């Protein structure tokens, strides 16, 4: 545990909907090393459970099962001192840079509140210096923005200000939930570049939550692919995308529109009845999977190794299990 900043063990989040259990996240494991800092992507489509993981890590929800430990302490049972440390060292940046500001206050207010709550500066000029330093990290001049109101800033500027606000506390980890999905395509690279700079020069790690694999591809270190609450594939980001082994991930990567190649073939979506499937007793992708076998609907696969530090939760890769001579048509 000495070199672990964040560790998630067997995290499950189960919601009760109309008397039925809905498994939002099932047995999620993650280890984030203390050194060196890294950017970990948690990706999936809507309903995959990626934001639920983020909310649990931020302490906004208590997990139904499993633990989240930060520097060796379970985050649900922190004492006063460690809770304050956790609140300071783990920061959040959310999707909507328009909803993160109070429109009645000038932009500087978001920094002043943080400085006051954590008692970071002894004087106003010391506070100003701190704010300027944080803004420099995201490439903004304080004199240009601090006196303005939120509506006078662009979406890209607002999101960079949120990154600067998080940076102000010198955090060890930033949980960024879809930070670029509402930012213009041409400014996305800039936000991603800021994340890389913070990782490389300030030792800040990220849990980067996204549905867009192309933004994760060249910028992030590890990728966790979720589908209906289940971790389908985990590994170094580029390996998972370039050498996808789980049928779901293969299919998803093929559906990403690229400039350099046209889509091949046609797609069909299955009925939504499959939402009823309980991932605790089967593979959630079985209804759509071209390689489906009887075993997939009666048993949940584990993560089987498919490469260096790369695991895939599909029976096709079960070294002990039966291999299938031919795949059954769905």
């Amino acid at each position: 545990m000495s070199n672990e900043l964040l560790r998630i063990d067997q995290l499950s989040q189960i919601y009760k909907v109309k008397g039925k259990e809905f498994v939002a996240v099932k047995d999620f494991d993650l280890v984030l090393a203390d050194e060196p800092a890294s950017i970990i992507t948690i990706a999936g489509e809507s309903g995959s459970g990626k934001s639920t993981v983020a909310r649990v890590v931020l302490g906004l929800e208590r997990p139904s099962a499993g633990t989240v430990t930060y520097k060796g302490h379970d985050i649900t049972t922190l004492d006063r001192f460690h809770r304050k440390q956790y609140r300071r060292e783990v920061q959040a940046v959310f999707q909507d840079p328009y909803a993160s500001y109070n429109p009645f206050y000038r932009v500087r207010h978001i920094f002043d509140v943080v400085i006051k709550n954590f008692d970071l500066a002894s004087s106003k000029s010391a506070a100003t210096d701190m704010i300027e330093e944080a803004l420099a990290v995201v490439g903004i001049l304080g004199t240009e923005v601090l006196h303005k109101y939120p509506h006078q800033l662009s979406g890209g500027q607002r999101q960079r200000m949120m990154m600067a606000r998080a940076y102000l506390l010198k955090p060890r980890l930033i949980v960024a939930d879809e930070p670029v999905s509402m930012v213009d395509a041409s400014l996305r690279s800039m936000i991603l570049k800021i994340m890389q700079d913070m990782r490389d020069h300030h030792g800040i790690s990220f849990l980067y939550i996204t549905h867009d694999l192309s933004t994760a591809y060249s910028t992030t270190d590890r990728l966790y692919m979720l589908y209906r609450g289940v971790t389908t594939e985990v590994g170094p980001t580029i390996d998972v995308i370039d050498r996808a082994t789980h049928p779901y991930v293969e299919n998803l990567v093929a559906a990403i529109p690229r400039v350099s190649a046209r889509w091949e073939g046609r797609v069909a979506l299955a009925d939504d009845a499959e939402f009823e499937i309980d991932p605790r007793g089967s593979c959630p992708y079985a209804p759509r999977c071209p390689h489906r076998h009887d075993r997939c609907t009666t048993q949940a696969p584990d993560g089987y190794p498919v490469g260096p530090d790369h695991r895939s939760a599909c029976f096709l890769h079960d070294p002990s299990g039966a291999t299938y001579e031919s795949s059954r048509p769905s």
Partner: protein
Amino acid sequence: MTAGTDIRDPLSTCDPASKMLEVRNLQVVYRTLQGDVSAVRNVSFDLERHELLGLVGESGCGKTTAAMTLLRLLPQAARIVGGEAIFDQRTDLLALNDEQLRDIRWRELALIPQGAMNSLNPMMRVRDQVIDGYRPSAGDTSVHKSEIVERAAELFSLVGLARRALALYPHELSGGMKQRVCIAMALVNNPALLVADEPTSALDVNVQRLVAQTLLDVKEQMGTSMIVIGHDMGLLAQLADRVAVMYAGTIMEIGPVDEVLRTPSHPYTRLLMDAVPEIGSDVKAVVTEGITHDLRNPPPGCAFQDRCPAAAEVCRTEFAPVELGNRHSVSCVRLGEFSLDDLWSSETSFTSGLSP
């Protein structure tokens, strides 16, 4: 359609290669307290029958305004200052009065608005919403009920929705299904021209692909001409026949999708493409931040001059499209005088203040 505006040539309508839409020198301003903002400046393009034109650019470049001008659905503050848009070689859309507009809109010109799937009425079955605007001929409001239901079922099968979905309410459908309901709704009168504003934004990639496939099927089977607005280059590369790249209200480059997006000729197109990270390529995305000129006071010459590393004296005064053939034109007077490779790599205008 009143007789006065009908200048249709009966022969030309049979020619599949003929023009569906001819836009010339379109100019739109938004009135603000600080003066008029030019949102669309001298935009001209042609759209052929059965053609899908992609309109791309950053937010604020005028792509939505340009398209909404054609439908005459601009907000109050906007004013069309000049230009014409000849539809089907017979009608100038910008010169129609309200009554003529009512006849042509939704029957011949249809729209899938941005975030369409959130615009469905939660209290109505989707079937009733799809056929609400069904007008087989101008001004005709008396359509037989069975005919209506048949039409809705036809459209649902076209967009790949099950017949049983007809009787459902919007909350019973997924996002992708709702978006396809909106496509069906726009097609109810078999329009000749369909404008779709970001038709797949906010959808997961698998669903996005399905909706894109639906649009292509519609184009194939109904021969609809389309203008699709978007900023996802990868998606437009799948959908479009031709692409127009807009910047600060001006078309910078327009031409066949393969030429424009895969081998850009204009520095701005190149920048836009380089800013998009692409899976499977190890080329680092370019990061630049530039200040666009004050849109109330556009400088003479090229609209991109303030951000273009290749800008020279001539760019401050001159601006004209250069025709490359194959209906491809590039608005850069210095075209061919410099190489687009390495235009940005040597000077990255964004520094985060962190480089050690």
